[in-house]
């Protein structure tokens, strides 16, 4: 019994660090580890991952807001899209079987990994494109990068496209019980051309709200098992605090490089599990 708690907290600290550095919220790591390694039921694992996302989001946001990395206005603006999406997704989840969930989850992760790979060779873009909308909505800002040791200014482009991807991120969140951070980071990093650290911190910040929008559905369905979700919450809060210290000193490129293979590996495992292959 108590061995399970130690395992859960250990997994959660790792997930908290991972989630707060990459902007993934930690749910991406929790679900596969709990189901594949600890043999926990997929519904309870999804419930725990939802708790992990909320804990990473609020825990990491304290530091990222304090250091000015999170863009509160961009986050708030895009939350309109993610919350509407989350309600849509939560409704769909009741009609989809667990093996289908695995496959959707896996394919979704694989897609994010490939998209992040492409960003590495992203082309230059026109800085003035969509500037008026970004200015009108105050979707700009600056932060001090501890790795570059200088101030970085930025503003959002392709705002409508970013808003659309955010709606999709919300649907995935409600459907899979994860913050679908990879989708959110992608919308800001890939579409709206924001700095990766700002995308990651703002994604983390938003994720708690998206997850909370679908949390009551999971609670009432009995997916939030206190014996599993309790230790997960504590571990993730510790991990997220550590993660915020690490991320600010990392190179953006390093963050991107860690992101891709991990996500791809987990994605393939989930798809195989969904297809009924045992390890």
């Amino acid at each position, binding site marked *: *019994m*108590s061995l399970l*708690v130690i395992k859960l907290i250990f997994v959660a600290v790792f997930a908290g660090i991972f989630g707060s550095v990459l902007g993934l919220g930690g749910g991406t790591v929790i679900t596969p580890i709990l189901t594949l390694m600890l043999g926990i039921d997929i519904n309870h694992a999804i419930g725990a991952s939802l*708790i992990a996302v*909320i*804990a990473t*989001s*609020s*825990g990491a*946001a*304290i530091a990222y*807001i*304090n250091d*000015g990395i999170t863009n*509160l*206005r961009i986050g*708030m*603006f895009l*939350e*309109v899209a993610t*919350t*509407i999406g*989350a*309600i849509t997704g*939560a*409704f769909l989840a*009741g009609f989809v079987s667990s093996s289908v969930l695995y496959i959707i989850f896996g394919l979704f992760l694989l897609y994010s990994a490939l998209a992040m790979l492409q960003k590495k060779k992203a082309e230059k873009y026109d800085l003035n494109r969509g500037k008026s909308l970004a200015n009108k*909505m*105050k979707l700009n*800002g*600056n*932060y*001090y990068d*501890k790795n570059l*040791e*200088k*101030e970085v200014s930025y503003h959002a482009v392709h705002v409508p496209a970013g808003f659309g991807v955010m709606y999709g991120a919300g649907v995935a969140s409600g459907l899979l019980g994860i913050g679908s951070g990879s989708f959110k980071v992608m919308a800001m990093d890939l579409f709206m051309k924001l700095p990766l650290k700002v995308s990651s911190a703002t994604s983390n910040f938003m994720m*708690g*709200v998206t*997850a*909370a*929008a*679908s*949390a*009551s*559905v999971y*609670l*009432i*369905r*009995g997916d*939030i*098992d*206190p*014996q599993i*979700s*309790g*230790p997960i*919450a*504590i571990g993730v*809060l510790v991990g997220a605090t550590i993660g915020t210290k690490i991320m600010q000193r990392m190179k953006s490129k390093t963050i991107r490089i860690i992101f891709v293979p991990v996500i791809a590996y987990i994605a393939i495992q989930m798809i195989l599990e969904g297809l009924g292959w045992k390890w």
Partner: protein
Amino acid sequence: MNHSQAKATREKNMDSVGLMIGWTLRIGITMSSLIIIFGLILFYAEGQSGYEADRYPTHIKDIMQGCFALKPYGVILMGLLALMLTPVFRVGISIIAFLIEKDYLYTVITLIVFSILIISFYIGRMA
């Protein structure tokens, strides 16, 4: 030099909105984690959950009753509930914060997000 530059950037970005949101999160996180830890200690000290095997409350009313009766699972779930509500409070506080900053555009945007959140909680109760 770099240090003071970092501090200047931080202070510029730290308007009252950032400060108020930061404190809301800090209070929410501290409260919920203390309750969860207390519940976990109760659970392992007593060696039982306060409920029948593999059962635990799933409705807010039952969770609160279990918590006040000091049933371990009830206490843990109460802490998890506080954790889940933290982002909702954060959005609520943001409405007031943007209003104080006289940023009416974002007061409205935040009001929209808050309304959607409240609707989602009601939908959850119906499901």
